[in-house]
């Protein structure tokens, strides 16, 4: 599934670094595609993407595309934050269990409760992308 893109007219508060290995993740995210690595040996996916499988420690991994859908495991709203994030206060963050069996953490947008179905969206900042989760929207037609 291609993720919705939300344009934001500001820079990221605390931009992530990229390595040669993780660059494809961020490049794909910019285009609305959420990817990670899966081990060629044990077939288990990992997140964040890693050049070494954390389960069996082999270095034979492949990039896969994830659906970007899951369930909200927990969330909170931050009212007192680090200096770089004061501009965003209050903001919500949460833990999402993706359908592929991976647990991730991200910003949460809009009204969504623990146990609800969520989908990932791309936050397109001026200087690059981040991702967030929002309430899952049923798609009746493909926008492609």
């Amino acid at each position, binding site marked *: 599934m291609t993720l919705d893109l939300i344009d934001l007219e500001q820079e*990221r*508060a*605390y*931009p*992530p*670094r990229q390595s040669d290995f*993780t660059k494809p993740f961020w490049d794909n995210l910019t285009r609305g595609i959420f990817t990670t690595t899966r081990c060629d040996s044990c077939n288990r996916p*990992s*997140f*964040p993407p890693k050049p070494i499988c*954390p389960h069996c420690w082999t270095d034979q991994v492949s990039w896969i595309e994830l659906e970007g859908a899951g369930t909200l*495991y*927990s*969330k*909170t*709203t*931050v*009212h*007192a*934050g*680090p*200096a*770089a*994030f*004061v501009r*965003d206060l*209050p*903001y919500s*963050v*949460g*833990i999402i*269990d993706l359908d592929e*069996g*991976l*647990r*991730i*953490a*991200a*910003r949460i947008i809009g009204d969504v409760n*623990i*146990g609800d179905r969520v989908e990932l969206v791309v936050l397109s900042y001026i200087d690059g992308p*981040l991702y*967030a989760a929002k309430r899952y929207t049923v798609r009746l037609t493909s926008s492609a």
Partner: protein
Amino acid sequence: MQHEAVTILGGAALPVGKLQGVSEVGTQQLEHEVLARLVVDALHDAGLDKTDVGSMVFTLPRPYTQQKYFATFMANYLRLPCDGLVMEVMGNGMTPALALQAAVDQVRLGRTKVALALGVNFETGTPAPEHMMSSMRATGDVDFHAPFGFTPISWYAMDAMRYIHEFGSSREDLASIAVKNRHHAIENPIAQFRKPMTLDDVLAQRPIVDPLGLFEVPGRGDGAVCLVIAREDIAKSTGRPYTRFRGEGFFHEGAHQISEVPNDMIAFEAARIAGARAFKAAGINPDDIDLAEIYAPCTIVEVLVSEALGFCPRGQGAKQATEGETAIGGRIPICTSGGLLSRGHPAYVTALYSYFELLEQLRGRGGPRQVKNAELGLACTELGNYNAAMVHIMEAVA
């Protein structure tokens, strides 16, 4: 291998408070002066001399402490030659417990008969938003968590939200922990927050990380502690009461804040396993413990650890706290010092205060907050979102 038993024989602790800053005449409290005084006081409390000490394990000072290489600086400041290790230890919230463990291990290894576990945490000169720019990098992945603005206590807040969701608990039930611990701290002369406080007071505070408000999360404080770790024959020779290490356990679940493989995040598996190992080593059950000092930066954490260690049934920890079961005079008093919320939380030395409280209680020096007939005490510390836990069981020897 049969070890000679190891003890905590004495200690000294600075009242927790905001100590950093420059006075009107341009002076300030300096970390090494504060700690040197505590070393002398702790040895006096233990009935030992300078020449008995052969190792010093320090907690790493905060980056705001100007004096670097603090351990070796102190070896010079105190003019103390050592056969055992002189070093600084770091492991987030577990830092002080790791320092204590390393000091214990120096004694067990035979490098020295007496070691000091000590440290100073001065940080309140740096405002919280600036401090969090550093601490957020310690409690999450710098590239895949920090960019979203997760703070150290935001993870505990998500524990609380999940606990309320799963067990039908409430913010009020969780907040009762803060009231209970404040009640304990009122009688603790080294506690940072001692003003009486009601549940309404707690619930009226501004939100910090939902569902937790200002009094349900730790205030910031400075502190310093020195504990004297001694081989039991040395402790015995002093004729003084002491506490003996009866059992210990450690476990790291191999995750950092969250497990990428979905798990039961609020089961606090590391605490459960570390606790079970400590109970087994001590040959006792949770029911045998007379008091517990639990590293709990937020109300919810004390609840989850009380359940993981087996003091309360799963999902019942908050409810039992509201019923007084974990208060002094209750079935299993938890955080008789006032805990992190009221005794205070100078993070890199916080757990040394926990062991100090056990030492005081097990020597019958708890004053008005003394747990009657306290013979077995437990300390549990952690790092991350309880991704690792270390448990020590101490017993009183009079």
